[in-house]
Every structure is written in structure tokens, then in C-alpha cells.
């Protein structure tokens, strides 16, 4: 296996600039790695080798001419199958989208192609991004390249961006796009030893990304390092006339924030994230993070975010409500699957029963229930009021601290099928990440250590709105202290 795939995105960028290898060589190395490893990992649902090699040829032509190369010129990426890609099948990993082939490109991916990046293919995810283990995909589960010490049991890569986290961790791309509605970037990053950031709501355009819960969905990258995630986010983010919720604030050069350190920075540690029965190793990891930041010159402050425990139940009203509205468009008429019926209603009902998987159906039904006459105030309005209180908790905290440090997940990667019986047990995976979505604030997960099983764990930093730069700055200090966590052996290749 070529060593080129082991490069970080930043190192590959430098190598291309120095002409140590060509974009075509780099791309071919990844296509070979996908060919060899995807059967075991199932990270890609649609590799696009011809498309990739055509883009690489164009990149090599630009790299050969002085001043023509763009910021991500010739860098091969994987794209979550939630992003519409023109002329390339996009399914959200749901049967209901069948062979849907967009006639347009999502704004975020267009930004990446305009910056010179190369698409290796479409990545697996939980159906419509609903899940924490990538087990609800129509294409089957994704496998985590990490294994428990001395075990061959297949572990989940997290979800919903499980194809993205697995592909990045297994060197099947330099970096990947992902999306995060309740933790779907940060949780998979944490349990695969990769870096994932959910930016502030409105930082990236949602146009052309298959909608799940519109007030919570945000695009973001998963990368091998903090620097790689910083490079990618800069070129994904933009204000977009096609998404009225995208916000017109300048996108900083996040890489410039990386060397700044944390001297004098105020780090908040919220007591409500210390759960009853939380595994000792998660508490230890958190304390280790506190010690690293203290040693680097930050000051640590105990803070309170009193409504934390209500974020997850409120999310499971708001997200299903929005999902039931958004998924109403899948009617068997305009695109995707159609099942016959004697009349229009029967056709809708048969199509949606056949096209949606169990978890999606469950959420559409919950959403329909909480929005239905007589229940709207008790559930939906109540949840949106709680959301206001969660946001206020963060606003108050940021009067006294610059950034908040928490664990990313309540535990390490679990085995495929181990948590599938009880929906609420699965939902609890997002207990530390969902608060940032409810408040719209940015959060990053950075690898920080190994569990007792020898699998990765992450720490989460939550920041002020539009202050992703500080998250990268602090995450870099943790990465410098913790080191990187490449998957130990390439059993899949």
C-alpha cells in the first residue's frame, strides 16, 4: 500500500506544491486503497474513480503553471452521501431516493471543487443522517478501522457520518465532508481517532444537502488532524444567497489560529456534564484535558449549564418534528422510489412504507404526533422554550469563559448490533454533543486518548458563535499534548 495515503491533507498539499508527486499519483493511491479496503469497511457507497482522475488531470495542469493552483488543488476527499453532487447518484443512504441523480451541486461541495479539491466518491451514512452508529444505512453498516485489543469484533464508526469517519481513519481519503444535527460529526470523529468540527449554525450553506432537521443541520469536515479540519472548513464555509440562514460574516484563515496557544485563555468545565455512572476512563480523559490546557497556560473555571440534561429530550421533539416536515417531500411523484397504489393516497403510503427504514419511520411518526392538533403546545412549543433556556445557559457561560471543555461521547466505539435493541440507548450517544446543536454554537472533537479496550476517545470543545478559530487554537494544544491516533494495523487492506 502506497505511503501517500498516510499523508495528512496539509502534508499532501505541501508535497504537491513541491512536485514530490502529482495529483494523479495521489488520487490513484487513494483509489487503490479504496479498491483494497472498502469491501471490509463499507465506507464508500459509490466510488467515483473516473470523475476523480479527470479532476486530478485538471489539477496537474494547474499545478504545472505558476500561480494557477487553487488552495485545495489536487487534494482527494470523500463526500458524505447527504451532499447533492451533480450527475453523481445521491441517496442519503435511503431506499426512498432510489437512484436519484442530482442535476445540481450543493454549495459546500461546489466551494470545495472551486478550491481545487478532488472527489473520490460518496460516503456511507445513517439513513437521512438519523443514527449514531451508521447501522441504519440502506447500504449496510460501516466498520470502524479500529478494533478492541485482542479482538476481531467489528465496531461501529459512529454516526451518522460513519462513512466519513471510517474513511478518514483508514486513509481512504485525505479528509471528508460530514454533517451534524445532534452530534453526527463529533461522535464518529471521537470514536475513530479523527478530528471533526460542527461549525456555528449558518457558517456553511445547507443548500443542496439533503435536509433532516433544518434548524439543527450543519455541514462540517472530518480530518486526520486539527490543521486538516481547519483547512477544510475554511473552504467549505460561505454565505450563500440560496440559503437564507447562512450568515454573512467573514470566514477567517483558521490555519493562522493554530500556533497561538492558550496562554491566558479561560476554559469552562461544566459540572452538568459529569453524569451518574459515567465510566471512570471518560472522567480521567476529561481531567487529562484540563491538565494539558492548564499546563499550556489556560485558566480553568467551574461553570454551570443548568439545562444540559434537558437538551436530548428536547432534541427528540424538535428534530423529529422538523424531519416529519422535511421528509414529506418523498411522495413517489417527483423523484426516487414509487410503489403502485389504487389511488394517490395509497401510492404515497405504499411508497413511504417501502422507502423509509425503521428508524426514519419512527422519527417521522413521532414528529407527526408532536405537531398534531392538541399536542403542539405540550411538546413542540415546550421543547422550543427549553431550547431558549439552553441557549441562555451558553450565553451566560461565555460572559466568563472563552471556551468549554467536555468529553465528546459517554464511551468508546461499540460493536455492530450491540446497541440496536433500544432507541433511547442509541440516542444517549449524543448526550454531550446535542447541546451545541440546540444552541447553534460550534463544537469540535479532538482525539485525546485510548479506552481500556484500546480504542480512541475524544474531547469536545464548545465555543462562542462564529468563534471556530478559538476551537482550532485550543484543539491544536490538545493534539500537541495527546499526539495523533492512527489506527494501529491495516487489517482491511
Amino acid at each position: 500500500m502506497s505511503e501517500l495515503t498516510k499523508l495528512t491533507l496539509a502534508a499532501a498539499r505541501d508535497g504537491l506544491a513541491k512536485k514530490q508527486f502529482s495529483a494523479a499519483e495521489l488520487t490513484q493511491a487513494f483509489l487503490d486503497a479504496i479498491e483494497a479496503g472498502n469491501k471490509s469497511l463499507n465506507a464508500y457507497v459509490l466510488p467515483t474513480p473516473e470523475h476523480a482522475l479527470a479532476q486530478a488531470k485538471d489539477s496537474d495542469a494547474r499545478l504545472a503553471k505558476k500561480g494557477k493552483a487553487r488552495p485545495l488543488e489536487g487534494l482527494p476527499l470523500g463526500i458524505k452521501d447527504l451532499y447533492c453532487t451533480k450527475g453523481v447518484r445521491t441517496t442519503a443512504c435511503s431506499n426512498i431516493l432510489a437512484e436519484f441523480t442530482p442535476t445540481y451541486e450543493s454549495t459546500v461541495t461546489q466551494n470545495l471543487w472551486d478550491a481545487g479539491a478532488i472527489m473520490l466518491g460518496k460516503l456511507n451514512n445513517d439513513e437521512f443522517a438519523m443514527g449514531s452508529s451508521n447501522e441504519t444505512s440502506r447500504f449496510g453498516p460501516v466498520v470502524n478501522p479500529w478494533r478492541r485489543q485482542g479482538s476481531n469484533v467489528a465496531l461501529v464508526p459512529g454516526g451518522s457520518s460513519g462513512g466519513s469517519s471510517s474513511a478518514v481513519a483508514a486513509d481512504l481519503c485525505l479528509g471528508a465532508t460530514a454533517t451534524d444535527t445532534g452530534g453526527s460529526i463529533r461522535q464518529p470523529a471521537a470514536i475513530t481517532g479523527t478530528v471533526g468540527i460542527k461549525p456555528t449554525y449558518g457558517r456553511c450553506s445547507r443548500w443542496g444537502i439533503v435536509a433532516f432537521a433544518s434548524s439543527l443541520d450543519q455541514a462540517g469536515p472530518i480530518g486526520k488532524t486539527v490543521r486538516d479540519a481547519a483547512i477544510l472548513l475554511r473552504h467549505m464555509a460561505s454565505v450563500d444567497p440560496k440559503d437564507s440562514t447562512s450568515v454573512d460574516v467573514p470566514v477567517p484563515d483558521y490555519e493562522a489560529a493554530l500556533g497561538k496557544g492558550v496562554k491566558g485563555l479561560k476554559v469552562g468545565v461544566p459540572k452538568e456534564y459529569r453524569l451518574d455512572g459515567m465510566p471512570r476512563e471518560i472522567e480521567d480523559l476529561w481531567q487529562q484535558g484540563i491538565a494539558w490546557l492548564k499546563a499550556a497556560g489556560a485558566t480553568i473555571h467551574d461553570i454551570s449549564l443548568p439545562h444540559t440534561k434537558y437538551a436530548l429530550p428536547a432534541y427528540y421533539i424538535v428534530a423529529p418534528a422538523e424531519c416529519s416536515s422535511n421528509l414529506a417531500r418523498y411522495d413517489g411523484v417527483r423523484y426516487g422510489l414509487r410503489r403502485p397504489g389504487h389511488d394517490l393516497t395509497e401510492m404515497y403510503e405504499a411508497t413511504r412504507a417501502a422507502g423509509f427504514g425503521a428508524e426514519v419511520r419512527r422519527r417521522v411518526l413521532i414528529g407527526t404526533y408532536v405537531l398534531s392538533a392538541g399536542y403542539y403546545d405540550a411538546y413542540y412549543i415546550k421543547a422550543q422554550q427549553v431550547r431558549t433556556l439552553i441557549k441562555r445557559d451558553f450565553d451566560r457561560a461565555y460572559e466568563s469563559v472563552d471556551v468549554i471543555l467536555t468529553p465528546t461521547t459517554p464511551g468508546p466505539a461499540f460493536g455492530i448490533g450491540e446497541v440496536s435493541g433500544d432507541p433511547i440507548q442509541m440516542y444517549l450517544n449524543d448526550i454531550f454533543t446535542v447541546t451545541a446543536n440546540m444552541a447553534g454554537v460550534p463544537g469540535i472533537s479532538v482525539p485525546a486518548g485510548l479506552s481500556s479496550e484500546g480504542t480512541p476517545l475524544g474531547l469536545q470543545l464548545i465555543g462562542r458563535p462564529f468563534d471556530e478559530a478559538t476551537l482550532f487554537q485550543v484543539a491544536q494544544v490538545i493534539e500537541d499534548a495527546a499526539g495523533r491516533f492512527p489506527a494501529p494495523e491495516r487489517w482491511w487492506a
Partner: protein
Amino acid sequence: MSGGAKAMQVDEATVRRIARLARIKVTDAEAKALEQELSGILDWVKQLDEVDTRGVEPMTAVVATTLKMRQDTVTDGGIADDIIANAPAREDHFFAVPKVVE
């Protein structure tokens, strides 16, 4: 995590009613299972009743913003081929559906 001895939040008739509203066909076996699953989730989210939300505005946007306005002009169009490109059934530039009016 389920409601234990508490009454079920949703019974089978309610499952059927919301499935109808959501336009999803459910079999008898599915309706039975959904009764349990939906009740479990709704019991769990009811913990929000502990929170005093009197006088609290429901959130409408996480980022304080005024609604963006644009010129009321046509900026797109003439792409009927694109719009019907993925339709499961079509005739010319029309989406085709089962007969609606006898």
C-alpha cells in the same frame, strides 16, 4: 427507559391515526411494535415537564438575524428537463400520477 407501570402514551388507534397523517402504511405487527416504541420515547421526553418555562419565548432562530430580502425578480428557470429528470413516471414535462379524478 420505558414508562414502566404508566399508561401508554399512544395506543394502536393513535399509531394508525398518525401513520395515516404521515402517509406511511403500517402492518398490524408494525403498529403493535410502534405502540411500545413511540410510548417509550414520548414518556422519556415528558421529563421536560420538570422545567419551568413560564414566560420563556420559544426559540425561532439560534442566530439573532433579520429575515433577508432580495429583489423580487426571476433568477432561475427554463430547466424543465432538469426538474423532471428524476421523476419515476412522466409525460413530456409533466409528473404522472395515478388517476385523481374519476
